[in-house]
């Protein structure tokens, strides 16, 4: 089963955006940490032998794929030529939410966007556009994010109060709730207000389809 678990390790590490601890990998592939570590070392050696352009590296207590240092000139060129400099729609939306609703937690951002925002938040943080501005006083003491002076500078404004007003715009109920509770909202779990009771006396779809003369 070692071949299978080695493949699984490659797959998992390929799609994560921050280094993964051997412990987590051991759980996911149902092996001991020692087994995982020996497989990771094997894989790393294989990539080195095959002179791949990437490495399996052990950084910050975890494992990740990264570009090979020898290839840095190509990556730099890619970065400098601006090909990497597109702020994705997801990143822009996240930035906008933080700008208008700060301070707020990662969980609140995720609840508004309806998806996990870890990697986007990290990118924005790394780029220096958002940062930790406070801690939630509640249990867990979640990090609360806000925009940075760099963000204001890049947009050419003095403070977030200079952002265009969105006062006339009413956000969705899910957004309001997410901001109030900081909890993830499951749209399906919320019963639609008019879905109950009133349907009883209405004709069923059987009626709608009923054309059978012999019924």
């Amino acid at each position: 089963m070692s071949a299978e678990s080695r493949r699984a390790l490659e797959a998992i590490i390929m799609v994560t955006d921050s280094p993964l601890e051997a412990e987590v990998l051991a759980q996911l592939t149902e092996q001991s940490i020692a087994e995982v570590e020996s497989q990771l070392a094997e894989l790393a050696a294989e990539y080195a032998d095959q002179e791949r352009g990437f490495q399996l590296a052990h950084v910050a207590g975890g494992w990740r794929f990264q570009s090979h240092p020898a290839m840095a000139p190509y990556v730099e060129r890619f970065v400098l030529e601006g090909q990497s400099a597109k702020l994705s729609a997801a990143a822009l939306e996240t930035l906008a939410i933080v700008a208008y609703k700060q301070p707020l937690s990662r969980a609140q951002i995720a609840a508004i966007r309806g998806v996990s925002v870890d990697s986007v938040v990290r990118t924005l943080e790394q780029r220096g556009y958002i940062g930790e501005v406070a801690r939630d006083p509640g249990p867990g003491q979640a990090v609360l994010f806000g925009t940075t002076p760099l963000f204001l500078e890049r947009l050419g404004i003095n403070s977030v109060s200079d952002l265009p007003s969105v006062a006339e715009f009413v956000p969705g109920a899910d957004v309001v709730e997410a901001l109030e509770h900081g909890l993830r909202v499951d749209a399906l779990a919320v019963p639609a207000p008019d879905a109950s009771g009133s349907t009883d006396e209405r004709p069923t779809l059987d009626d709608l389809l009923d054309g059978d003369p012999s019924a």
Partner: protein
Amino acid sequence: MPYEVQTSVFEGPFDLLLHLILREQVDLYEVSLARIVDAYLIEIERMEVLDLEITTEFLLIAATLVELKCKRLLPEDLDIDIDDEFALWEERDLLIARLLDCKTFKDAAQVIGLLFDSASLSTPRTAGLEEQFMEIAPDLLEGIDLEDIKKAFIRATTPKPKPVVSIEHIHSIRVSVTDAVEELIDELPRVGTVSFRRLTDSLVERLEIVVRFLAVLELFKQGFIELDQPTAFGDIQIIWIGSPALGVADLSDIDTYEG
């Protein structure tokens, strides 16, 4: 049968027709036209902006179906106008072409669904740049202005459509002709005579008024009521002449009585 489950199966008149003819193998004779017309009315009501082009097409198709059914049900007319006959065939073929088109994309949709499913087995790598390259990376906010930020915020916080659509159907079904007929049969015997304006003055939606008008016509055809309109474009008087003992449950008996 749970209501929602059933409604979500059919989406509109084409879906209904395709199902009835292809799956249930029923004949137009057996298909309830009033229900299909209702399905069209529901779709027209669901449109956020009343699109004249679509509405006209919907009505044309509904009319074709009614004409086909009439032709099939009424005794053979000996002096058939050959032009009318051809026109009907032409409309029928047009309708079949539309249904085939609809079916084509229904089948294509299944393949697209399968592609989605198989592609979802792979997760893309989105890790992006490593930290050491961040410093040299050009400003990501290049070319982004305040208006873009505002738009992105509005996009992100706009109410998302509910994933379940069937609720809209349930709501829309309130305006079915059958419902309106049943309401009238319940109400008219008590009031005896009433004007159409009076009958509809509590209704807000134009569609509800139209549906109630269709229901009145239906009752007139069935012989339950007399209609009187003293002046052109004047108010219509509705006079109940059906048996006062008849209730909603007896509506279906009328058919056998007449037949």
